[in-house]
C-alpha cells in the first residue's frame, strides 16, 4: 500500500517537471540564497578563527605591546661636596614640552602645531617638521623636544591644555644647579644634553636621546659615578599616550656622591685674591696638599658660570664666553701651556745638585750677563742677560736671587774667557724635567689637560729642522725658550721639592660614596713616581727657596707668623713691543710652613712680574689657609654619611 502511494505521489510530482512549476523554481532560488548565507558566514568564521584561534597568541602580544611601554627612569644625579661637606651642586626640575609622534593623530598634526604656537610661540612649521621626522624614524614613540627650559607658568598653562593636545607631554627633568656660580666652574665643569655622537657611543649604557651628561670637569670625569643606574618602569598608556598606571617598576639607583679634595672656602678666597691681581686677564692658581697631591683650590680666570649650560643653554652668554679673547671656557690651570720662567729653576737646581754639577758652595760670578763667542767666528759674541747684576753667588744666592747667569752655568756650562765650568747639558736637564712630570699630562681627574713641552735636540730638529744650540740650553735653564708648562704641572714640581721627591698624580676628588654613604672610591694618594734626587738635595732647594722669601727675589711673599719658601718667575712671551720690551708672565710657586711643608701653591698671572704681582698672591693664599678663623677651618672630615638624595 505504502509502496503504491509512493509511486503515485512520485508520478504526480514528476509531471510538472517538464513544464517548470514557478513555486518550485522559487524554492530552488531561495535555497541558493540560503546557501549564500551559509557560505558567507563560513567564510567570516574561518577568517575569524584564523585571527582569534590560530594567530590569537601573536595578537595578544601585540595588544600588550600596544599599551605597555617600557620607559627609563633617569636616576637622580649624584651630588658633589667639598672636602668639608659644603654642598656644591643641586638638582632642580626643568620643564620641557615634548611630543610623541606615535600618539598624534595624523589629521590633527596641524591643529596641534597651531596650539603649541599659541602656548609656546614655536613656529608651527618647525613643530610639524619635527613630528613628521619622528613619524618616519625607527622609534616614533621617543619623545621629541619642542621647547625646553619652560618657566613654571608656561608649563602649568600647557598642562591645563594637554587634554586638547594628544601626543603632547610635559617632560620634567632634573638639571644641575651650581650653587656657587663662578667659584667652582673650572673644577666642576658642567652638564649638558647628550649629542648624537655621545649618544651613539653611550646608548648601550642606558642613555636616551634626551639625556644629559657631564661635559667637562668633575661632571665629565666622574660621570660613571654621578649618573647612577637608570631604572625602568612598565607603564600602561592609552592610544593618546596618556599614562594610565604603572605596572612594574625597577627603580633607578641614584648617582654616587662625589667628595672633592677642594676646600671651598680656600677656593673662594683664592678666586677673590686672584681676581684682584688678574685685572680681567688670564690667571690661574693651584693649591696642593704636599703629602697627598690633593688639590685644595684650583682657579682659572676669567671663568664662567656652569649654570649657563644646565637646562636650556643661555645662548647669549655662551656667545659672550666664546668671543672673550681670554677664553673663559678654557681651564688656564691645566689646559693652557705657558713658559714657566724662573720657577723652572727648581728643576735645573735640584738636577745640578744631584748630578754633582753644583754643590751649595759652587760660586759663580753673576755680573748681569755672559758672552759666548760664535763657534765658527769667535769675533761674533752672543750676549745672555741676567735680570740684574749680583756679583759672586753661591747656590743659595743663585736660587734666592733667581740669577739667570748662575743657572746658565749650571745647565749649559761655560768654557770661555779662562773659565771651564761643566753644566748639565740639555739631555740631562730634559731628563730631569721629564722626571718632574713636565712635557706630559699629570693625569689630574679633570678634562682637557695639556702636556706642555720639554725640548731637546731631536725635538728641535724635528719641529724646526734646526740644530740645538748652547743658547737653547741656557734658555731652557731658566724656563724660557721652548719650555712650556701648565700651572698644575708646576705646583706638582714644588710639591715634590717640598715633600722630598714624591711626584703625585693630582686629584680634585677625595672619594666617591654611594647613596648609602659607603665609600666606593677611597681616598688614596696616587704616586706617579719617586724622583731620583736625594733628600739632602731637596732640603738644599727648600732652604734656598726659604732664603728667596727671606732676603732674595721673593720677599714680597713674606707674611708674619708663617715661614714660606718660594720661587718667583717672570717669563717673557710674545714679541717685544715698541719699547723693545716683551710682556711677561708672572709666576710664584711656594710652600709653607717652610720647615715642615704641608701646602704648596702656584700662582700664574698672564701679565705681570713674579716678585711684584704673583708672590704676594701666593703668600696671601697660604696665609689665609694657615691663619683663617678656626670656625672657617672645618675639620677635614667628610660630609655627613648617607647624604640624602633628592
Amino acid at each position: 500500500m505504502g509502496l503504491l502511494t509512493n509511486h503515485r505521489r512520485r508520478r504526480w510530482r514528476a509531471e510538472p517537471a517538464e513544464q517548470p512549476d514557478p513555486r518550485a523554481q522559487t524554492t530552488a532560488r531561495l535555497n541558493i540564497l540560503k546557501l549564500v548565507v551559509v557560505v558567507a558566514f563560513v567564510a567570516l568564521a574561518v577568517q575569524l578563527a584564523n585571527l582569534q584561534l590560530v594567530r590569537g597568541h601573536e595578537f595578544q602580544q601585540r595588544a600588550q605591546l600596544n599599551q605597555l611601554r617600557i620607559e627609563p627612569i633617569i636616576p637622580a644625579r649624584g651630588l658633589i661636596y667639598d672636602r668639608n661637606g659644603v654642598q656644591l651642586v643641586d638638582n632642580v626640575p626643568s620643564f620641557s614640552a615634548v611630543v610623541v609622534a606615535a600618539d598624534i593623530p595624523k589629521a590633527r598634526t596641524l591643529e596641534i602645531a597651531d596650539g603649541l604656537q599659541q602656548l609656546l610661540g614655536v613656529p608651527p612649521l618647525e613643530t610639524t617638521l619635527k613630528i613628521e621626522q619622528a613619524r618616519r624614524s625607527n622609534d616614533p614613540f621617543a619623545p621629541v623636544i619642542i621647547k625646553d627650559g619652560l618657566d613654571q607658568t608656561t608649563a602649568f598653562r600647557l598642562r591645563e591644555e594637554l587634554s586638547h593636545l594628544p601626543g603632547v607631554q610635559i617632560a620634567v627633568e632634573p638639571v644641575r644647579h651650581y650653587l656657587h656660580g663662578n667659584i667652582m666652574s673650572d673644577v666642576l665643569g658642567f652638564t649638558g644634553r647628550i649629542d648624537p655622537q655621545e649618544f651613539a657611543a653611550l646608548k648601550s649604557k642606558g642613555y636616551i636621546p634626551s639625556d644629559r651628561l657631564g661635559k667637562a670637569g668633575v661632571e665629565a670625569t666622574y660621570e660613571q659615578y654621578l649618573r647612577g643606574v637608570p631604572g625602568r618602569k612598565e607603564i600602561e598608556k592609552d592610544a593618546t599616550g596618556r599614562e594610565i598606571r604603572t605596572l612594574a617598576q625597577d627603580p633607578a639607583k641614584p648617582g654616587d656622591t662625589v667628595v672633592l679634595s677642594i676646600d671651598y672656602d680656600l677656593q673662594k678666597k683664592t678666586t677673590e685674591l686672584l681676581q684682584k691681581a688678574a685685572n680681567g686677564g688670564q690667571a690661574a692658581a693651584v693649591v696642593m696638599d704636599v703629602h697627598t697631591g690633593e688639590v685644595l683650590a684650583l682657579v682659572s680666570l676669567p671663568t664662567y658660570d656652569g649654570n649657563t649650560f644646565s637646562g636650556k643653554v643661555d645662548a647669549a652668554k655662551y656667545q659672550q664666553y666664546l668671543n672673550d679673547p681670554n677664553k673663559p671656557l678654557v681651564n688656564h690651570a691645566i689646559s693652557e701651556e705657558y713658559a714657566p720662567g724662573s720657577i723652572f729653576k727648581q728643576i735645573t737646581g735640584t738636577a745640578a745638585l744631584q748630578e754633582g754639577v753644583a754643590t751649595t758652595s759652587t760660586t759663580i760670578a753673576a755680573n748681569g750677563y755672559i758672552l759666548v763667542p760664535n763657534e765658527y767666528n769667535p769675533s761674533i759674541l752672543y750676549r745672555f742677560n741676567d735680570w740684574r747684576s749680583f756679583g759672586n753667588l753661591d747656590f743659595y744666592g743663585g736660587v734666592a736671587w733667581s740669577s739667570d747667569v748662575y743657572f746658565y752655568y749650571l745647565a749649559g756650562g761655560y768654557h770661555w774667557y779662562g773659565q771651564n765650568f761643566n753644566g748639565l747639558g740639555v739631555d740631562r736637564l730634559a731628563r730631569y724635567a721629564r722626571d718632574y712630570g713636565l712635557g706630559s699630562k699629570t693625569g689630574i681627574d679633570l678634562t682637557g689637560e695639556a702636556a706642555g713641552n720639554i725640548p731637546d735636540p731631536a725635538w728641535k730638529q724635528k719641529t724646526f729642522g734646526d740644530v740645538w744650540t748652547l743658547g737653547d740650553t741656557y734658555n731652557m735653564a731658566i724656563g724660557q725658550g721652548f719650555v712650556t708648562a701648565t700651572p698644575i704641572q708646576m705646583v706638582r714640581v714644588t710639591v715634590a721639592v717640598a715633600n722630598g721627591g714624591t711626584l703625585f698624580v693630582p686629584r680634585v676628588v677625595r672619594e666617591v660614596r654611594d647613596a648609602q654613604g659607603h665609600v666606593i672610591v677611597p681616598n688614596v694618594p696616587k704616586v706617579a713616581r719617586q724622583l731620583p734626587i736625594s733628600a739632602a738635595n731637596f732640603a738644599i732647594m727648600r732652604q734656598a727657596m726659604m732664603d728667596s722669601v727671606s732676603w732674595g727675589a721673593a720677599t714680597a711673599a713674606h707674611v708674619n707668623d708663617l715661614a714660606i719658601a718660594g720661587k718667583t718667575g717672570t717669563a717673557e712671551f710674545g714679541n717685544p713691543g715698541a719699547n723693545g720690551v716683551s710682556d711677561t708672565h708672572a709666576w710664584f710657586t711656594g710652600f709653607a710652613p717652610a720647615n715642615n711643608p704641608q701646602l704648596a701653591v702656584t700662582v700664574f698671572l698672564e701679565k705681570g712680574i713674579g716678585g711684584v704681582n704673583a708672590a704676594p698672591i701666593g703668600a696671601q693664599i697660604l696665609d689665609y689657609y694657615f691663619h683663617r678663623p678656626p670656625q672657617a677651618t672645618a675639620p677635614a672630615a667628610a660630609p655627613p654619611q648617607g647624604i640624602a638624595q633628592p
Partner: protein
Amino acid sequence: MNLRNTPTHEFDYLLALAAVALTAYGALLIYSGSLATYGSPSAALSHPVSRQIAFAVVGVVAMLVLTRVDYRLFGPLSLTLYVLSLAGLVFVLVAGGSAYGSRRWISIGGTQVQASEIAKVCTVIMLAKFFADNEERVKSLRVFAISIAIVAVPAVLVVLEPDLGSAFVFLILWFGVALIAGVRKLHIAGLFALFAAAAPAAVLGVAAGYQKERISIWLDPGKDPLGTGFNILQAEISIGSGGLLGKGFTHGTQTQLDYLRTQTTDYIFSVGAEELGFIGAMVLFGLFVLLLFRCLRVAGHADDMFGRLIAVGVMTFILFQVFVNIGVNIRLVPVTGVPLPFVSQGGSSLITLLAALGILQSILGHRRKRSRRV
C-alpha cells in the same frame, strides 16, 4: 465562511527575537565601547546607550505597527516612497551634514537622519513592486534595464556623497531581488561582463582618492601604521587578541584604552570579538544566520511576488552589510563604511531595519488562509 480572505495573523517570534537579541547585543557593545569616552552610563539621555535604546523602542513600535498594516498598501505607495527617498538623497548632497569628508545625513529636529538607510528599504519596495507588476515580462530586456535603473539612481546619489559602501548595497540588493524575480541568467551574465570590463577603469578613474588609498592600505596597513592603516591594524589586534573566550566584557584593553577608533559604529564587531572572543562572535553569527533564514522563510511563505521580493531584498541588504562590515573588521574586505545591522550605533539604520522586519511580519501575517491546496 470565506477562509481565503482572512489574514493568518502569523507572527514570527523567532525573527523578532533574533532582531531584538541583536539589538541588545549591540547596546551592550556600545556601552563597553563608549566607556572610555562617557564613563558609566549616567542617566544622561545623551549617552550613546540611552539613545540607542530609545531608537530601539521607536523601531520596535514601528515594527509592531507595520506588522498590523497590510503590506499590500505599500504597492500603490511604492513610487511615492521611492521618489521621496531619492529627494532625501538629493537633499543630503545639497545641504547635508558631513563627517570624514563626505555628506551623509540630514538634520531633522536635531536628529541626524541617514537618508541612505531609508532609501534602501524604499528602493527594495519599489523594485519588488516593479518586478511583481511585470511578472510575465520578467525575461524581457526592457524590464531588466528598468529594474537596474531603479537601483542605479539611488546608488549614483550615494556614490556622490561619497559613500561607496552604500552604493554597493543597492546593487547587491538588486541582484538578490532580480534572482528571485527570475530575470534571465543571460542578462545577469551580460551585466557581470560589463562590470568586469568597467571595474579597472572605475578603480583608476572614478573611485574617489580616499577609496583608492583605502584599498592600497587594506593590502598593506603597515605602510601607514599611524594614519589610515591604524584602524585596520588595531581592529585586527583587537579581534585576534580576544582569542577563544575574549578578555571579558568591558575588559578589552584595545577598546577601553581607545586604540580602536569608531568602536561603536564601523568597528563595533572588534569590540565584541575582543571582549567576548570567538565564542561571543559565534553567538552573534548564529543570531544573524537565524534572522536571515527567517527572512528567507518569509520569502518562501509569501503569498505573492511583491511580498516575496520585499523579503528577499531586505534579507539581501542585511546579509551584504553584515558580511562587508565584519569582513572589514577582520581584513577580508577593503575598508568600507557600512554599519553592522542592528548592532552598530545609529538610529536611522536601526529604526529602518526594525520597520523593514515589521513589513516582513506583515507579509507573513497578511497571507490569505488556505485550508488546502486546490
